[in-house]
């Protein structure tokens, strides 16, 4: 087996000063090259925090307390700021959650799309532009030339998200992190975007980390997934296995809560309180053990 693309081991994070409130509790996961991995959990579970930790953009109140993050075999956390910026800039791309605010309103699309290629692939503007034009066609934008010359406010939300997807994959990075990329979009557009990301991933062979709260999305496009609750990994593994035979009561409850189109009578069951009680007891025990080791 080749070395994993991304290896997170025993990552811990807290918010606030001093001991702080735990945000991540001993999180470990591995992503292979070309794998699509889902990071699933409800709001506040810590999935965004993991993504931000990898990208090096943790907000000021949150800090890592322990653990390693290895990207393509290199220890991210031990690199100095400049080396980290170079490694991440060239090999990791982000598809952000809100396409409306993620593009600079004062710059044309063509300049924003070519940044990465010029900076990290040593291409000249003309060359980079030609390449991104081809990519705009790949993401099924109908008038790529017009979009190139446009300003962000001239494009619709769906179009902006496609542009951001093109930007992410156009760089040919090893890893793309998609942070809930469909949350801000219409339902009708969501499905298209998901299929697009899957297609791009297949064509370019990139690893993808898909951060989402929607098990349905994970079912559609992820190979493997990590399920988080309150910063702790509840379940992890191949998506097929997870969905067919969930081991953890939380996963089971989540599955039961999903509306099923093939079994119209079932689904929409609320997660029973007993499950939460179990989870919280588990986490409390974990915290006590951690404190004992600290």
């Amino acid at each position: 087996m080749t070395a994993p693309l991304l290896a997170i081991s025993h990552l811990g994070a807290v918010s606030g000063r001093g001991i702080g409130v735990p945000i991540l509790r001993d999180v470990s996961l591995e992503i292979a090259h070309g794998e699509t991995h889902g990071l699933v959990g409800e709001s506040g579970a810590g999935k965004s925090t993991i993504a931000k930790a990898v990208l090096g953009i943790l907000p000021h109140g949150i800090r890592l307390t322990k653990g390693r993050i290895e990207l393509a075999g290199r220890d991210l956390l031990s690199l100095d700021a400049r080396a980290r910026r170079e490694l991440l800039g060239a090999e990791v791309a982000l598809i952000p959650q809100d396409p409306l605010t993620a593009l600079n309103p004062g710059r044309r699309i063509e300049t924003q799309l070519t940044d990465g290629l010029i900076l990290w692939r040593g291409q000249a503007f003309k060359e980079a532009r030609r390449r991104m034009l081809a990519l705009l066609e790949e993401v099924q934008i109908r008038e790529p030339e017009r979009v190139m010359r446009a300003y962000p406010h001239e494009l619709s939300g769906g179009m902006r998200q496609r542009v951001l997807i093109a930007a992410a994959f156009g760089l040919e990075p090893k890893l793309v992190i998609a942070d809930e990329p469909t949350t801000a979009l219409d339902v009708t557009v969501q499905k298209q975007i998901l299929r697009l990301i899957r297609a791009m991933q297949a064509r370019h062979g990139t690893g993808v980390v898909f951060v989402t709260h929607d098990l349905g999305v994970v079912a559609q496009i992820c190979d493997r997934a990590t399920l988080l609750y309150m910063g702790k990994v509840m379940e992890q593994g191949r998506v097929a296995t997870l969905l067919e035979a969930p081991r953890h009561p939380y996963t089971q409850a989540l599955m039961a809560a999903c509306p099923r189109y093939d079994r119209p009578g079932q689904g929409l069951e609320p997660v029973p309180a007993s499950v939460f009680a179990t989870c919280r007891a588990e986490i409390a025990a974990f915290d006590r053990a951690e404190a004992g080791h600290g």
Partner: protein
Amino acid sequence: MIATGLLRRLGMAAATLFGVAVVVFVLLRVAPGDPIAMMISPGASPQDIAELRARYGLDLPLFSQFGIWLAGILRGDFGTSISLHRDVLGLLAERLPATLELAIAACLVAVAVGGGAAIAGTLMRRRLGEAALDGAIGLMLAVPDFIWALAFVLIFGVLWPVLPLSGRMDPSVSVPFVTHFYLLESLITFRFAIAGDIIAHMVMPIMALALPLAAIISRILKSALSEAMVQDYVLIARVKGLSEIWLVAGEALRNVIGPTLALTGVQFTFLIGGTVIIERIFAYPGIGNMGIEAVINRDLPLIQGLVLVFGALFILVNLAIDLAVAAFNPRLRHG
């Protein structure tokens, strides 16, 4: 669309200028004291005085005086200066370039210093340097151009005399200039030694005018930049791996220039007014200095002409600011 907006604004500008003319005209003629009395020699007869008064039209009713003067302005005839015995328009044309050079240079310096300080302050976010810079700017905000000028006179003119205290050029040098834009001309014709001398004379008045404006620009721009830096698109750019300097100056800056200009625009017009006392302090031969002399001498035609010129400058600067704000907004650029 832009054209009609421009036309409307020009129309309002003309109305404002007209209002300025009316106000100064009335103000000067309700004043106690006789401007004629200042001009005559002691032994003049009542007849001579009456003649003089008639010559300057001061015996006519207010309306007529204004009408005559206005008609003259539209013809290009600004009247004759009572104290300097020369054509007012010629006097204005002679002195205006000096003030323009001063004011424009001061604006540029203010933008450079203020902008630089704001960018530096934003780059030093959450570090000790930022607090020090903020404190310095805060102090600078309290110092008006008048005090800067006097402090410079003391420090650089007397205690450590490295700069000339008055005038525009070394009086012993006589070089023929074609225009009255001494600095511009000497630079264009590569007479750098002379340009250097002119700049040495301009340094203190320029800094006195520029520093208060720079402090304001710095405060407002830094605040706007700090707000912009937490926006999503800056975060995305950071993830792309762009350097911190590019994030501030390349990503955030272009989106905050417009709003910053809108807020600070009026301060540029204050700079124009500041030239009056600054030129006086440094005996700089511009229209500001001439204005003080004109008022002291009750030189009505000259005062009226000067006020019109200042008014026109004020309006032009306002217009320029408005256009610049629109230019920096990509949403407006496309009609």
